[in-house]
């Protein structure tokens, strides 16, 4: 049955499914690279964004201005150009080529993509967190002060935990955007999910197969990630949802005069 089934598909499918199946392990590796780059840059960018957001929400003009400039630059320009600037641009300077960092890191496409993505998501996350730090309930901060908590303790125990929760829905969008943005890696020679699709199409001179497989896999990843976030939100933002009212059904036989 097996062989005739494959022959049937080869004859009738508009896409070369057999070729896709043969190269499917490459696509999975590509998906792994995409997930790895996205996850690592989210971790690095997320860790960077916490102190930056605290600075942005505070009122020290000397610290605030450079952080503002950083977020403005990275939020106002395309990720593609930022990545090009780091991967192709840094080599222009002789002194950067001389440093210890050049050989293992700055000349490698993977590291450059990670640096560009991390800075990009750090900029977006900083502004997002700043917004939710600034909307902290005044009463909560006053109560903390009344309890004698110092500035850092207030931040750690009161402000940040509730700010993180409030930022969660917007942050899930940022994660999806980063996942979408990671396709830029394929333009600087990295074999991520789209990179594999482009390789397949180039190698076998095809128009659909590689891109469609990549598109389907991206779609599945995005779907899973947004489902995951929805569950996470349900857990962490439970106190913000309206209570579920369980309506009691009137018992049979009991006279009901409710209008």
């Amino acid at each position: 049955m097996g062989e005739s089934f494959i022959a049937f598909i080869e004859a009738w499918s508009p896409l070369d499914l057999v070729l896709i199946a043969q190269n499917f392990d490459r696509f999975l590796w590509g998906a792994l690279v995409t997930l790895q780059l996205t996850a690592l840059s989210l971790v690095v960018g997320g860790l960077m964004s916490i102190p930056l957001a605290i600075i942005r929400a505070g009122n020290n003009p000397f610290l605030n201005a450079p952080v503002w400039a950083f977020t403005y630059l990275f939020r106002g320009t395309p990720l593609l150009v930022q990545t090009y600037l780091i991967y192709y641009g840094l080599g222009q300077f002789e002194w950067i080529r001389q440093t210890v960092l050049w050989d293992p890191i700055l000349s490698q496409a993977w590291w450059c993509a990670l640096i560009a993505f991390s800075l990009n998501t750090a900029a977006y996350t900083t502004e997002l967190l700043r917004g939710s730090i600034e909307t902290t309930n005044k009463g909560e901060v006053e109560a903390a002060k009344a309890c004698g908590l110092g500035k850092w303790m207030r931040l750690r125990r009161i402000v940040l935990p509730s700010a993180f929760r409030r930022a969660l829905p917007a942050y899930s969008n940022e994660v999806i955007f980063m996942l979408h943005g990671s396709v830029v890696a394929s333009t600087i020679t990295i074999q991520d999910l789209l990179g594999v699709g482009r390789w397949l199409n180039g190698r076998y001179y095809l128009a659909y197969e590689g891109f469609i497989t990549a598109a389907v896999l991206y779609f599945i990843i995005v779907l899973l990630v947004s489902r995951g976030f929805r569950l996470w939100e349900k857990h962490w933002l439970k106190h913000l949802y309206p209570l579920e009212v369980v309506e009691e059904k009137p018992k049979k036989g009991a006279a009901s005069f409710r209008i």
Partner: protein
Amino acid sequence: MDLIIEYQAQLLSGTWVTIRLALISLAIAVMFGLLGAWAKLSKNFVAQKTAAAYTTIVRGVPDLVLILLVFYGGQQLVNSFGAITGLWGYVEISQFAAGAGTIGIVFGGYMTETFRGAILAIPRGQIEAGIACGMNRFTIFRRVIGPQMVRYALPGFSNNWLVQIKSTALVSVIGLQDVVYNGFVAGRSTRQLFTFMFAVLMIYLELTAISDVGLRWLDRKYSKGIVRTDHG
């Protein structure tokens, strides 16, 4: 700096391509957004499901993947269809058309959600009042829904536009000579890629800054006579 002045003609023509691409794709996005919002709010089951599938797919797949698919795959599809039916001969989809069309359709998905929310934000009573005054559906849209929808949709619209203008950079990957492509070529031939990429970055910053001013003006214009609550 001298080099940038030497290559300013290329950079300017690239910027012009980027601006045209962004504006045309915006027009397509608004069209698809209105159509999508109408379909999502209609009572027609097929229209609802089609719009839902459209927004889910378009928001689930990265734009560059769709641009590549449309540019390489779309051309082959159009030509095979023409060859089978004999309706047309060899057709070539230009980079500009593929880019503007795809970005427009992708952001139409985001606009759909924005417009749908804006229409839902209009108090139902006003639409009923319009019906009571004997307005037909088109007049209600033009006089009641339209003007208020703009105001409710503006924050989301601004956000989408700022993301969209940056997405146009991706079209350089399929070889459209926009500002990124031209800057890259100039930088490679002079071996000054950092200088040129930085110039491109500044051009994009300029474009976002200008749109920010424009959007703020629109916001003031459409919220005339609205008293805003001060959440101090």
